[in-house]
């Protein structure tokens, strides 16, 4: 009995790690590889969650819906909607230093929260959207959880594969060049604004996908489901701690931070009522402090960014040494 509960909890945790991994990979494209500061992750997440829910859920009174589209269409719709919101913001803000993007994305997240709350005809207002279909939802509880986990792992794997490919491609090389020396990249004739816009929109689309996966897992989405600041900040600390610029690091960071975050919740829930509320805020204080400590003592994260550029040189250098050693020996 105990064992089944534990297994249930582990699967539940793993599903969340998968969802957050997709968000962290999206942020890694924006921050890790391009150096764009997105402080509105929760906004794009919410857009994805609501878009997919509206597209796939059965009809309900008083709000948009009843399209009953296949879930895959919902997910693609979520990505497209998040990208469509990111595009104009990037278009205006990416000409300047990333500080402006940070402020603008805070604003976007705030406005999306307002729209979700007050446009009941679209989002169901405070009640949110219920009866969102869940893939494999008709199976018994544990099997259904496992099947959803498998689906998430497949999606994360696919996203990881695609991002990794893109980063090793000339596009990724160009992004790093722009991030590390903008003037030099511009002198080489790279269209910096356009490249940054691509990275920003692509990352936002992944965040939308993460939102969709979350909504379908929960079978519903309400305005209370996400605390914008805490959600955004958790993704940031996951990426920075894991290692920005490294996709495996991002996923590792998600696992580490999410396990610590959830475990600490289990601990604080045991406390008496009056301390439990304070402890909740202390946890937030501690993740804020954690970010400061990581930035100070290990800014490259647990797994630092791999040195993509020396990949081929490293292979050749030992050979050259050997040749020179051989000639010296002669």
């Amino acid at each position: 009995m105990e064992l089944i509960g534990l297994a249930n909890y582990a699967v539940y945790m793993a599903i969340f790690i998968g969802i957050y991994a997709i968000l962290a990979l999206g942020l890694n494209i924006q921050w890790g590889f391009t150096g764009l500061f997105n402080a509105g992750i929760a906004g794009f997440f919410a857009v994805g969650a609501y878009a997919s829910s509206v597209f796939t859920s059965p009809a309900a009174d008083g709000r948009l819906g009843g399209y009953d589209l296949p879930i895959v269409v919902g997910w693609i719709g979520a990505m497209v909607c998040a990208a469509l919101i990111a595009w104009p913001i990037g278009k205006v803000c990416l000409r300047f230093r990333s500080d402006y993007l940070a402020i603008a994305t805070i604003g976007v997240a705030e406005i999306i929260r307002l729209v979700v709350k007050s446009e009941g005809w679209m989002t169901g207002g405070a009640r949110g959207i219920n009866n969102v279909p869940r893939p494999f939802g008709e199976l018994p509880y544990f099997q259904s959880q496992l099947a959803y986990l498998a689906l998430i792992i497949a999606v994360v794997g696919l996203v990881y594969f695609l991002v990794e490919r893109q980063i090793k491609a000339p596009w990724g090389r160009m992004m790093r060049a722009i991030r590390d020396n903008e003037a030099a990249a511009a002198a080489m004739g790279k269209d910096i604004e356009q490249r940054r816009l691509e990275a920003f929109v692509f990352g936002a689309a992944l965040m939308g996908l993460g939102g969709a996966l979350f909504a379908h897992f929960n079978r519903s989405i309400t305005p209370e489901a996400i605390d914008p600041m805490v959600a955004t900040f958790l993704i940031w600390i996951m990426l920075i701690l894991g290692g920005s610029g490294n996709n495996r690091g991002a996923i590792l960071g998600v696992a580490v931070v999410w396990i610590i975050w959830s475990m600490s919740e289990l601990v604080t829930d045991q406390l008496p009522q009056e301390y439990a509320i304070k402890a909740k805020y202390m946890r937030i204080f501690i993740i804020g402090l954690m970010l400061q400590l990581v930035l100070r003592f290990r800014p490259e994260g647990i797994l630092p960014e791999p040195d993509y550029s020396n990949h081929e040189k490293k292979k050749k250098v030992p050979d050259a040494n050997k040749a020179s050693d051989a000639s010296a020996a002669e």
Partner: protein
Amino acid sequence: MTFMDLINFYFVPGVVLGSIYALGAVGITLVFGILRFAHLAHGDLATFGAFAALAFVTALGVSVWVALPLAMVAAGAVAIGLDRYFYDYLRERPKILTVMASLGIALMLRAIVQVFWGVDTETYTRGIVRPESYWGLRIRDRELYTFVAMFAIVGVLWVFLQNTKWGKAMRAMSDNPDLALLSGVDNRKVTMLTWAIVGMLCAAAGFFLGLNTELKALMGWTMLLPMFAAAILGGVGRVEGAVIGGLIIGVVEEMSVLVIPSEYKAALAFAILLLILLVRPTGLLKGKVL
């Protein structure tokens, strides 16, 4: 609705709100101009200042007008401490990392307020204050004080920046930090001085917001976007620009209720911010663009 109603119910509250934004925006423009990064913890530092004033009022039983300077000193000290322990060591690294650190600080400051003061809304004084009528113009005392205090505080700051040695050093560092360093300006001391001033301005902004509405943990965070919009609208690095920007944003926000649903009042600052970045990124009075 008569013209006087328009003034009394929309314009006057707009000017009061604008004065509060102006106090915050001046601080933002100083950090943006002198230290060259967007300080995202600005709103939450204002929240801290407001609650510090509340602590002085409840613990010492002093009047709010004694609590204000005490809270300003406290917030100034906190701001210097934040720089000393969290921002300063990131000086040589890309500035965007300091922006990130400040987002973390925002969360930490808010958590501190929530732990110590809880999540209930608070007020400095109880009871309803009726507005006084000045030839048909209906203004509450506290609204008048807010407006006057804003001009007094910014006026003192202005004189300080224009006429004193340290004020000139701050302006020199804003124009060109390397040249200032070569001319013998101690960048470290100017940075500390800037933080002290910024902390005090934050506390004043938070205090007046608390005086005119109520105190809650999220009060500063919701002010962040309008304050940034005001600083950028006025021109980054321009103190007088921040005041003009703050007043414009405040009045536009309050007036907007006449044409758009009131839920979206908060979205207006964002719209103004995007618009100004699109058409005139240097702001109304030519400021910096980072």
